[in-house]
């Protein structure tokens, strides 16, 4: 049996491998890119047993808690942007101002916050008309954000007003404000009283925004920050439950709290 070919063969193959590996990657070229989308609507069948076997245990556990109806609405509240005020924004801001103040003023000699400010980005989903489940509120407000009260100077309050005007409207409560054509603050009433830059103001908001979220720099370095221990989501759920106990629905409404001033 001759050994030589077998001794040479690995060397030969190794050389071949080196040639193969070091040889340039022969480039190819893109000739066309055709982007598109497929809508995930009811025409796409849903019958994947592997997927449903993974999902089902989670879903069963979740539904038992989240599908419970906690109240009703008289109108849908769609998640909308680029509007001076929205049904959803007004509703949530009112709940945060009222329920937040209820929790906040439990301490003796505490005066309530005057203004609530929130951000559109923080309202994550629409609310339908009719029955509202606990899950609906988790989708609207999935975050664990807590309600806090921030005391700020009149100058910083003016920065807040400029922010609201420049953004074209964010969820607020406790104030009424006109926006001029150049997107600066016009006529402003705080709790029905004209804005006064020499006074201090108590702002009720989320800890996320108080900690610098959404570039609300006027909430930074405040005179005082106080916690309420109440989560925004829990405040909304409790509001629905309380109205249900009174046999009432949530009735969303626009009230012109932020409007564009016309000449």
């Amino acid at each position, binding site marked *: *049996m001759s*050994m030589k070919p077998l001794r040479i*063969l*690995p060397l030969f*193959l*190794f050389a*071949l*491998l080196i040639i*193969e590996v070091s*040889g*340039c*990657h*022969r*480039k*190819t*070229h*893109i*000739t*066309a*890119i*055709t*982007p*598109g*989308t*497929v*809508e*995930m609507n*009811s025409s*796409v069948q*849903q*019958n*994947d047993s*592997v*997927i*449903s076997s*993974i*999902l089902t245990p*989670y*879903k069963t*556990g*979740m539904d038992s*808690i*989240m599908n419970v109806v906690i109240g009703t609405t008289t109108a*849908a509240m*769609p*998640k909308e*942007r680029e509007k001076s005020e929205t049904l959803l924004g007004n509703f949530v801001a009112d709940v945060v101002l009222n329920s937040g103040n209820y929790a906040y003023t439990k301490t003796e000699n505490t005066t309530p916050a005057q203004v609530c400010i929130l951000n559109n980005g923080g309202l994550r989903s*629409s609310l*339908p008309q*009719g029955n509202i489940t606990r*899950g609906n509120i*988790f*989708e609207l407000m*999935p*975050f664990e954000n807590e309600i806090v009260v921030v005391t700020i100077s009149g100058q910083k309050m003016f920065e807040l007003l400029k922010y609201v005007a420049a953004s074209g409207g964010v969820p607020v409560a406790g104030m009424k404000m006109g926006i001029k054509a150049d997107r600066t603050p016009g006529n402003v009433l705080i709790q029905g009283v004209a804005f006064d830059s020499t006074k201090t103001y108590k702002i009720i908001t989320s800890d*996320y925004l108080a*900690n610098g*979220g*959404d*570039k609300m720099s006027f909430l930074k370095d405040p005179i005082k920050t106080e916690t309420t221990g109440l989560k925004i989501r829990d405040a909304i759920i409790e509001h629905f439950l309380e109205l249900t106990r009174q046999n009432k629905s949530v009735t969303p409404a626009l009230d012109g709290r932020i409007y564009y001033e016309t000449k």
Partner: protein
Amino acid sequence: MTAESIMKQSRRDFIRTLTGAGALFGLGTLTSAFRKMEKPEEKVKVVILHTNDVHSHLEPFPANDPKFAGLGGVERRAAMIKQIRAQEKNVLVLDAGDIFQGTPYFNMYGGEAEIKLMSAMGYDASAIGNHDFDGGLDNLAKQMQHATFPLLCANYDFTGTPMEGKTQPYKVFVMDGVKIGVFGLGIEMAGLVDSRLYGKTVYTDPIVKSAEMVKELRDNQKCDVVVCLSHLGYKYENDKVSDMVLAKKSRGIDIIIGGHTHTLLENPVTVRNRENESVVVTQVGWAGIRLGKIEIFTDKKSRNKKITAASSPIQSVG
């Protein structure tokens, strides 16, 4: 020569023969594998399927949803991905981040269901979104134990955090010899994410990092196609860095698959980069209401790059 030594000798020969045959077989397979990998087929079609900002929407929107009634859901998406994989040879499935936060699935299970389902659907890679920090870095690291796909992020430094070593800047996919380099970009956390959630994570300039990635993917990895999987956002009124800003300032990126702003581009936008080459920028809304589908055609001979997408009205859907 004793009988024993003869046996030893022949055993040695036998082993040597085996080794030779093994080398022949092994190297042969290896070289053919390399040949297959390194040389693209004449004409290749690659399909990239993509989602962004799914935000824990594992089920379709309920029938009473004012805007997206009946749309979305993982079972439907899985079925569509499976159907396209059956029709097409070369399919990549990518997500541009914000997998987490938006339904009680996340509040109750921390994202475990989301990651397990994406793995089962055969996702190939994902970017990291700002809301993927919402359970903290410990939670993200914990949930990624269930992932069969990598998290791609070139511009976050997780050194000294629970996410250290659990991400990679890019991944190269080879399909019919065509090399597709995909790199990930994350948005600046300051002012967007609670600092307690992202901890010591360091953000670096995505424009600078993108240039480094393109150099690595084009020059060293010899990629034919470069895809950026971004959670920067489509575009802003101010000068904040976005997919549109990146596209204009970039070179060597073919496609930017975006997220964060929940922008639904009916037809993706084509932007001219700094070398006047076209870059496709796309994003498919949020919550899995649509599946993006990009078809890429390559040819070894032709150099004419045609992008059939036309720009169209842009809407923010959620």
